[in-house]
């Protein structure tokens, strides 16, 4: 089947709130929305700060360093675009900047048997199309 017929994974459709996050990803940078008033980072980006209710916030770059909070391994495709990507490792990672600052992503460059809570991770940016880059994670190299 030609490439154009291979089903794609669902791709993010940025909205006004998320556009700076995805624009950062396209530049291979991880950005989080930070509350001006209390400094708490939010992911996904929020209209107002859930910690203090502050409504002024800006995107700031973060390190991309994280640890593995938990994971699951899928052996069947969660949607048609994953048919050729099995098994899929779905991970929840905790960024080093803040406790319970969690992100969902796939883990790459690691076998399911090597997963453990607390494993040091770093971002791997996956350019899917010209306009879309996904934020993935892999074991930290140092």
């Amino acid at each position, binding site marked *: 089947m030609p490439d154009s017929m291979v089903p794609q994974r669902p*791709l993010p459709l940025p909205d006004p709130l998320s556009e700076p996050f995805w624009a950062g990803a396209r530049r291979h940078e991880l950005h989080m929305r930070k509350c001006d008033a209390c400094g708490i980072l939010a992911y996904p980006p929020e209209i107002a700060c859930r910690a203090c209710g502050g409504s002024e916030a800006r995107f700031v770059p973060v390190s991309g360093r994280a640890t593995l909070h938990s994971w699951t*391994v899928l052996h069947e495709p*969660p949607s048609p675009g994953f048919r050729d990507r099995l098994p899929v490792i779905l991970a*929840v990672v905790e960024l080093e900047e803040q406790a*319970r600052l969690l992100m969902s992503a796939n883990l790459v460059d690691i076998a399911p048997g090597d997963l453990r809570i607390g494993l040091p991770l770093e971002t791997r940016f996956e350019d899917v199309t010209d306009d879309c880059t996904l934020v*993935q994670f892999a074991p930290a190299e140092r």
Partner: protein
Amino acid sequence: MWDFRNKVAVAGVGYSKLERRSDRTLAALTLEACDAALADAGLRRSDLDGIATSPAMPRYGGRKGVDEGIDVVTPWYLAGLLGRASGVQWIGSTNGMVTQSLIDGALAIIGGLCDHVLVYRALHVPEGRYVNFESSHAVGSDQYLAPYGFSMPPAWAAVVLRRYFELYGYERSDFAHYIANNRANAQLNPNAYWRGKPMAAEDYPGARMIADPISILDCDIPVDGCCALILTSAERARHLRRPPALLTGFAASAWQGAGGTPMNMEDMWDGAKDVAPRLWDATGMSPADVDTAQLYDGFSVLVLTWLEGMGFCRDGEGLAFLRDGHGDLGGRLPINTGGGALGEGRLHGMTQLAEAVAQVTDRASERQVPGAAHSLATISNGLAKSTAFLFSRDG
């Protein structure tokens, strides 16, 4: 304590047949359950003056909740089907869970808006897969999940159970006793989808994996069907056909927790631990007063976080409690005595409510916890939209 403690009661319970895919419409199944609940209470359709539900169809990806009578039954539509379009005084509809409708209905009775409220939940199994994210783009909160394949609730629950196993040193085999025993409870429940299909603990480790470590036996089965309750004042209920199940109190969660993943263990505990003291304050009770607990089990792991969050076990000790049989009928705290949603089918919390009612009214036949005076029912995962109720025996 809540001023209206034990002033509202469940006076009747009704079920439609629960089937994987029914050849009847969802509207017909809903009418079957509503008429059964009315008959149980000894009431007629003409007595109904309040109706409440959460009509949403919880599908992920694909089309959902668009055809009245087929995949949704809204309370306005149901009022017409029941011939009560002009008789109903109050209608409640929520985008929380149906358990929020029970709270709304109780408050409508206390507020004098109506006398007999029907609270029902009708659920339909769609064509194809329940979770079927086939769209090419993901919008809103899905944009942070679906591109990674994180679009199905079993996977959300799986990361919670995985973390629980890893942090406290358990493995899947530790859940086998509870899962098999729960199925045994379902054998004693005439409404249960899995009645007539027992399983052994040995069947659990090899069960088909949906999202490791969540297997098919850790997920409630989606069914076509409906369960309905009749709420009225305790005073009126005492003159009806069945003994009333008194609503002693309730508490609801608005705990959002961390974003980035729909469920995480720590926030589920924190949400439950936010609900728990408010429930005990409202009711004047404590975990020691609970004779049997109906803990939401749309996924098996939720039983653990509720058991711990509500104060029955310390964090991480819930699975040992279940593994050692303390949650069995005859155990220290019989849990999900009718088989829960894992045994009965997916009714989004109605299972837990109906079983709590059955236990405090001595209507649970072979699965009755002798003399059960108080039954807890907790619904959802501890995060926002979750609820906890305490039902008590009259007199």
